[in-house]
């Protein structure tokens, strides 16, 4: 079973995934360049260019997100993001213990990958949270800042624009942490690059 090849990632998922990855990285770099804007820092992208790139990639990422939503609605891939609450904590705990200790003791993974369970419980929980909570918030707040006239001027005495921007930056930061952890965890496979290759070929 362990050596059997599984076709886990159909073409539309791979296209969505790599588009999402490239756009997210550009958004992260341009977002940092705007947030920490400093014309004297050569590592940052210029503010004008950052604004334009961030706007274009933000719109592209939002359209790409629709592909993800519709793909999940109309294919079986949507099931991979559903979780049963019963025993969730136990499953998350078991998977965490595997990552922290079990894998170093050469133990078998507690939740082996199958066509029905592409993700282990920890992945399922984090991916669902990122895609169904994080992404909608960052996209909605991003659209609001693209059209600031739609933002409520004052929210409980605080500038609506400030609240929106803060939400956008905080979620962006959390999602960027996810990106780093995601890339690192993807190196935990049969070889360091096997998971990356899977997302190119579709075969695990």
């Amino acid at each position, binding site marked *: 079973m362990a050596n059997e090849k599984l076709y886990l990632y159909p073409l539309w998922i791979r296209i969505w995934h790599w588009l999402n990855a490239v756009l997210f990285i550009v958004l992260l770099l341009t977002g940092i360049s*705007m*947030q*920490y*804007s*400093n*014309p004297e820092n050569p590592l940052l992208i210029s*503010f*004008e260019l950052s*604004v334009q790139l961030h706007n274009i990639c933000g719109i592209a990422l939002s359209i790409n997100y629709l592909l993800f939503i519709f793909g999940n609605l109309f294919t079986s891939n949507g099931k991979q993001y559903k979780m049963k609450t019963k025993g969730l904590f136990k499953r998350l705990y078991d998977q965490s213990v595997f*990552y922290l200790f079990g*894998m*170093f003791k050469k133990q078998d993974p507690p939740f082996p990958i199958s066509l029905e369970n592409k993700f282990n419980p920890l992945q399922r929980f984090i991916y669902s949270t990122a895609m169904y909570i994080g992404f909608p918030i960052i996209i909605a707040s991003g659209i609001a800042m693209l059209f*600031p*006239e739609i933002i409520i*001027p004052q929210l409980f*005495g*605080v*500038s609506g*624009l*400030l609240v929106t*921007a803060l939400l956008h930056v*905080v979620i962006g*930061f959390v999602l960027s*942490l996810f990106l*780093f*952890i995601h890339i*690192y965890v993807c190196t*935990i496979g049969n070889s360091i690059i096997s998971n990356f290759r899977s997302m190119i070929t579709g075969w695990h």
Partner: protein
Amino acid sequence: MKLSKLILGCICLLLSFSLYAQKETNKNHSCLKCHAHRTYKYMNEDFGMEIKESMCSNRMIDTLAYQQSNHGMFKCTDCHSPEYETFPHAGNLRMELMYACNDCHAGDPEYAKFHFEAIEEAFYESMHYNRSPDAFTCWSCHNPHTYKTQARIGEKISETVSYDNNICLSCHADVSKYELLTERENINILKSHEWLPNQELHFKSVRCIECHAQLSDSLLVSHVVMSKDSAIRECTSCHSANSHLMASLYRYKSLESRKGSGFLNAVIINESYVIGANRNKYLNILSVVIFGLVLIGIFTHTIFRIFKSK
């Protein structure tokens, strides 16, 4: 007997106070009965006819705005010639030279915090004064009948921005007033600012003088208005840690807000948001700590993987 004397005394005091108040309110009545209206009437005694005329619009006074303005407590003849008290007014009165700010405010310790002398020096350096030294005065921007120090009394930055920008727009969006000061063709500011992204938001949130006046650390409002070639066009002048905006109104408002609601509230309850300039120190530290912990976690895990795979 004593009680009745006391009551009588109180009544007299109230009466005199009310008469004084009425006198204060009516101090400008003889002027405003004509100058507060679009039309005025007078008796042509030669012909025994009552004549109704229309009031020239720039001779009209908005009484409410005048009462609320910084100079609202003055009698008209405190600044204008007492000869105006007779009607019809003598023609040569129109030639009277108006007072400039420092004719009253210079050297007065009570007004030291407004830095009138420094403002005057800055004004003489301004492009406005140097292009039309005879025509451009303090009153070209600050209408003496309505002017109030908005930033010091305004609750919100947006109100101050709107008030201050309307001063600029009173000429730069009104051909009739603009033509009084220059021979140049009128400027279409929407077109000349086409390059500015999110133009409407910038116009609502930023004062014209933030980009068009020289930065001043000592004056709340810099009065060295520059030519358009010297205006700021770099986004990072405002959108960066050393934001140009933090030198004037925004710094003042932030300091005032800290006095009123404490430092932390001023940091949290911030009216304005400027990408690249608004950075919360505590959030910055927190994000660096969290990011550092994640990297340390990844690094430690990697070390264990390398060590255990041997």
